[in-house]
C-alpha cells in the first residue's frame, strides 16, 4: 500500500525542539510522513516540512526527548499523512493522531484519506439551509445554527462553554426531528483530562456514545501532535459525512491551544512572527480546518462545526478570536458578567452572530416571523444597553418614560430570555420573545410590520387583559 518504505539511519545532524535536521540521502517529497524510531524501538510519527538538495527537516509529532543523533532511524512512507477509516469508528475513543486508546480492536481501514483534505469545490457546495434546534433561545431564535455551518463559541477561562457544547451535542436536532440525528465527533485539543472525561460521561449518560467518536489530545500530549488532531478528526468527519452520508457535528475544544501550538512550532522553525508572535499564515492555517465544514450537492451527509475557543484575557480583538471570526460563519460570545449574575447560558447577545441564519430561517424553514422577531429583539436590546450606559452615569431619574421601559426590558431580557432552566423549543423561545416585546410601546417596534404587531402583540395583550 505504501509507495516507498525507505529507511535511513545516522543521517541526523541536529535536533532542535520538535525538529530533526537530516542529511537528504533518500528521494522524498514535501509533507511526506515519516516514522522516527529510537534506540528502544519506540515509534514516533513525523512529517517533512522543508527540503533542499542536501538536507531536510522532519517535524516530530511527539516529544523528541530521548532521541539521539546516531541511534535514531527514520523510515519514510513516501506519501503525506493518511488516516485509515471505516464505519466502525463510531463509538470509539482515539488519541490525537487516530490510534485507539479504549483497549478495543483496531479500526478497519475501509478507506485511506489524506488528513490535510482538499478544498471543497465551491460549485459542488450546497447552501446550508436546515435549521438545527439546539434548545438555547439565544442561539435558536437569535443566532440560528444550520447544518453545514461553522459556528464557534468565543469563551473565556472559567465560563461554562463545555457544558453548552455538551448540551448542543446531546440535544441538537432538526425541527421536528429526533435528538439522535447527529453523529458527534468530539475533538479535545490540549484540554485537561477532566474536560475530556466530562464529555465522555455526558454522552454516555444520554446513551449517545455509539453515535460519538472522541479524539483526545490532552494537555500533556505534545504540541506538534496538537496541530494534527483536528485534521485527523475532520478527516473522520468528512468520511462519515460524505462517504457514509451521516450528519456530523464536530465539537472542537479548545482552538486557543491549537493556535498556541502553531506559534510554538512556527517559532522553532525560525519563521518571522506576525501579530503577538503568531505566524503570519495563521489565517490560512485555521481556514484549512474551518472550511472543511459544509454540505455537498448529492451527498446525504453534512458536516457542521462548533469549535470552542477561550479568548485570552477575554479580549475579542486578540488574533485568535479575530482571525477565527473572519473565517467562521458567525460566533456565539459568552460573557463573564452574565455568568457572574448566574445567568446560564451566559450568551452575550449583541456581539454574537450567525451569518447563515438568513438562509435557514423564515418562511419555509422555521416560522414566517422568526427573522423579524429576532431583528426587533436585537434592536430593542441594543437600545436597552444604550440606555443602561446613560443611566449608569446619572441614574434613572433623568430618563424619559420610554427609556425607562427599555431599561426594564433589558433586565427582563437577560433574566427571562437569555437565562433558561431547561431546553426550549423554537416555538417556546418565540413565545418568550413576543412576551418581552409586549412590554414596550408599539410605536417603538419599527422592525415589525403592522400585521406582525396585530397577530403577536396586540391580540395577545387583549387576550391577557381578558384573562386577568
Amino acid at each position: 500500500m505504501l509507495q516507498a518504505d525507505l529507511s535511513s539511519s545516522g543521517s541526523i545532524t541536529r535536533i532542535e525542539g520538535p525538529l530533526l535536521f537530516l542529511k537528504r540521502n533518500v528521494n522524498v517529497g514535501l509533507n511526506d510522513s515519516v516514522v522516527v524510531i529510537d534506540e528502544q524501538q519506540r515509534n514516533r510519527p513525523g512529517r517533512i516540512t522543508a527540503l533542499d538538495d542536501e538536507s531536510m527537516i522532519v517535524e516530530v509529532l511527539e516529544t523528541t526527548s530521548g532521541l539521539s543523533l546516531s541511534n535514531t532511524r527514520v523510515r519514510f512512507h513516501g506519501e503525506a499523512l493518511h488516516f485509515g477509516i471505516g464505519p466502525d469508528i463510531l463509538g470509539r475513543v482515539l488519541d490525537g493522531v487516530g490510534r485507539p486508546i479504549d483497549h478495543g480492536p483496531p479500526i478497519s481501514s475501509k478507506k485511506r484519506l489524506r488528513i490535510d483534505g482538499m478544498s471543497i469545490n465551491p460549485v459542488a457546495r450546497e447552501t446550508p439551509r436546515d435549521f438545527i434546534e439546539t434548545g438555547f433561545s439565544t442561539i435558536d431564535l437569535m443566532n440560528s445554527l444550520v447544518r453545514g455551518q461553522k459556528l464557534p463559541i468565543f469563551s473565556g477561562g472559567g465560563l461554562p462553554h463545555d457544558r453548552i457544547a455538551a448540551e448542543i451535542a446531546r440535544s441538537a436536532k432538526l425541527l421536528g426531528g429526533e435528538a439522535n440525528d447527529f453523529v458527534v465527533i468530539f475533538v479535545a485539543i490540549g484540554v485537561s483530562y477532566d474536560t475530556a472525561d466530562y464529555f465522555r460521561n455526558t454522552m454516555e449518560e444520554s446513551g449517545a456514545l455509539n453515535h460519538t467518536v472522541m479524539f483526545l489530545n490532552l494537555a500533556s500530549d505534545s504540541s506538534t501532535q496538537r496541530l494534527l488532531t483536528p485534521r485527523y478528526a475532520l478527516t473522520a468527519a468528512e468520511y462519515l459525512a460524505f462517504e457514509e452520508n451521516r450528519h456530523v457535528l464536530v465539537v472542537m475544544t479548545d482552538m486557543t491551544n491549537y493556535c498556541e501550538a502553531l506559534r510554538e512550532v512556527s517559532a522553532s522553525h525560525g519563521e518571522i512572527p506576525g501579530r503577538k508572535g503568531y505566524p503570519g499564515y495563521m489565517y490560512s492555517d485555521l481556514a484549512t480546518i474551518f472550511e472543511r465544514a459544509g454540505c455537498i450537492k448529492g451527498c446525504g451527509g453534512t458536516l457542521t462545526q462548533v469549535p470552542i475557543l477561550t479568548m485570552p484575557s477575554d479580549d475579542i480583538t486578540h488574533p485568535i478570536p479575530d482571525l477565527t471570526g473572519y473565517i467562521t460563519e458567525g460566533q456565539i460570545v459568552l460573557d463573564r458578567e452574565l455568568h457572574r449574575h448566574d445567568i446560564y447560558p451566559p450568551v452575550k447577545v449583541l456581539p454574537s452572530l450567525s451569518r447563515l441564519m438568513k438562509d435557514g430561517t423564515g418562511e419555509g424553514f422555521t416560522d414566517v416571523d422568526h427573522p423579524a422577531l429576532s431583528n426587533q429583539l436585537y434592536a430593542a436590546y441594543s437600545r436597552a444597553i444604550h440606555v443602561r450606559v446613560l443611566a449608569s452615569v446619572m441614574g434613572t431619574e433623568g430618563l424619559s418614560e420610554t427609556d425607562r421601559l427599555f431599561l426594564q426590558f433589558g433586565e427582563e431580557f437577560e433574566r427571562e430570555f437569555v437565562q433558561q432552566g431547561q431546553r426550549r423549543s423554537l416555538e417556546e423561545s418565540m413565545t418568550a420573545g413576543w412576551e418581552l416585546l409586549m412590554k414596550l410601546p408599539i410605536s417603538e417596534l419599527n422592525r415589525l410590520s403592522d400585521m406582525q404587531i396585530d397577530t403577536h402583540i396586540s391580540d395577545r395583550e387583549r387576550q391577557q387583559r381578558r384573562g386577568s
Partner: protein
Amino acid sequence: MSEARINWISGPVLRATSEQQFHIHESIRVGEVGLLGEVIRINGDEIVAQVYEDTSGLRPGEAVFGSGSPLSVRLGPGLLGNLFDGLLRPLTLEQGNFVKPGIQARVEEKFGFTPRLKPGDQVEGGAIFGTLNSAKGRPQYALVPPWVNGEVTWIDEAGEYPDDKTICIIKESDGKEHQLSMCHDWPVREPRPIKKRMKIQGPLLTGQRILDSLFPLACGGRAAMPGGFGTGKTVLQETLAKWCDADVIVYVGCGERGNEMAGVLDEFPQLEDPHSGRQLMERTLIIANTSNMPVAAREASIYTAVTVAEYLRDQGLRVALMADSTSRWAEALREVSGRLGELPGESGYPAYLSSRLADFYERAAAVHTLCGKTGSVTLIGAISPPGGDFSEPVTTHTKRYTKVYWTLDSTRAQARFYPAVHPLLSYSEDIQSLVDFWKQNHHPDWLKQRRRFLSMMEDQQRLERMARIIGKDALPPRQQHTLMCAELINEAFLSQSAFSDIDRYCSPQRQAAMMRLIHHFIVKSEEALERGVAIEDISSMPLLRRLQRMGEEIGEDNIKAFTQLSHSLDEAFSKLKEGETDAAG
C-alpha cells in the same frame, strides 16, 4: 522552452537552478502534475518561483518548465455566468466534489458568432470584429487583440463555433498573418491599453440609500469598505453585486468562505436584474479563491479579476469589480514575502504593499476604449482590519488610493442596523461631480439636504454625549428635536434590509422622494416647535411610524404614495397646532 531543476521547497515557494533563461513573472509548470507557478526572482542561475497550487509531494530534482510568456489569462465569451478559480480556470461540477491540484479544465461550449467586418476592412488593435452570444452570459463583442493591426483577409460567416477556432484572419502591412479566435490571452499584471481616460460622467448607482444619497461612488471610481468581522462587509458587497447598475459584475471572493460562494451561485440565477430585466447571473462572473485554497493564487486572483474587468470594459461596458477581501490578498503577499526572507515592513507586510495597492486601484477608470466606445471599471474593495483597528497598514494605504470610503461600524451591526456604514466616519470625494446627476433626476436640493442630514447626525453624537451627563429630559426642546430627527434619518432612511423583497433595492427616484419627505418632516417639525408645540406631541405622532417604516411599506411601483404621505404629514402638523391651542385655551 526553458527548463530548471528544483533544489529547495518551502510551502508555496520554491527555488530551482537552470542553465537556461527565465523571465521575471514568466509562468511555469512544476513537477509531474504540472502545477502552475510564476517566477518572482532571478539570481544568477537560480530562479525563485511561487506555486499557485498545493506543493505537497514535490521533491528536489523535479523539473520546472518555463512557458516563455508572463502569467496570462484567456479572455473570451465563456466568462460571464461562470465561476472560476484565482487563475481563471473554470470550476465546474464535472471536476468532482473537491478541487484537485493541476487542473487544466476547459469548458467545451459553442458560441454564436456574427461578423461585423468583411474582407478588405482595415482594423486596429481593440476593434470589434463580430458579436458573440453565449447560453449563459449577456451578448458580447469579439475584440481584435490590442497588438494586432492590419487588413481582414478572411472572416468566417455567422454560426456557432467553439471559442478557440480561427474565425478571422488579419494580415499586417508587413505581410505577417494573425489568426483570431473569439479569445485572446492577456498578461494579468499589465493594464490593457485604452485610447484615453475620461472625466467622471455619473454615479454607479447601488440602490442603497446610505451609499447613493450620502456617499455616492462615481462610475469608474474606487471605493474602500473597511469593517471588522460581523459588520456585514460580505452582505454589502453581495448586495452591491446584485443591485448596482453596472452592465457587468466581476466578484472576487479572495480568501473568503466557501459557503458564501455557494450562496451566490444559488441565489443569483434566481434574481432579476432591475435595470435590464434579465437574469442576474448573466452579467456576473465569480472568481473564487476560498480561504482554504492555495495562498499564492490568492495574490494572483485580484489581478486576474481586474484584467477580466478591463477586457469587458474594452467592449464598451460599465464594469464593477467587488473584491472581498483585499486584506486576504495583502496577507498572501506577506506570506510569500516572508518565505522569501524579505525584510518585513509595518506589521510584517512587505515594503511594496503600498505600491501594489496603488497599482491595483489605479486600474479603475472611465475610458474611451480602443474600439471607440466608452466603458468603465469601478473598484470596490472590502478590507478586514485585524481587531477592527483602522490604523493598520492595509486600511491606511488603501485610504490613500481610494476616493470613497465606507466605514462599517460594529456598534451599528450589533444592533442589527444594516447597512452598518457609519455616517460620520465615511466620506466620498465624488460629491461635487455628481450634483448634476441628481439635478437631472428631479432632486435639485440633493446637496443641501445631504449636508443637513449629515450635520444632524453629527449634532446627535455631540448631544448624546451631553445627555449622558445631564439627562435627555434636561436638554432644551430644540436639541431634543435634533435627536428625534437624527433617529428618524437613521431608522427611516439609512437602515435598509438586504433581505427585504421591497426595500433591498431603492431607485434614485424613490431615494429622492424619501429624502425629500424626511427633510419635509424636519422643516415642518421645526416650524411647529417654533410655534410652541411641545416636542412630546411631535414625537408621539402616530404618523412617525409610517415614516419609519416607509422603506418596507412603499415599494418602487408606488412612489406616488410618498406625496400622499407628505400631505398627511402637513395635515397632522396643522392639527397639532389646533391641539395646542385647545390645551392652551
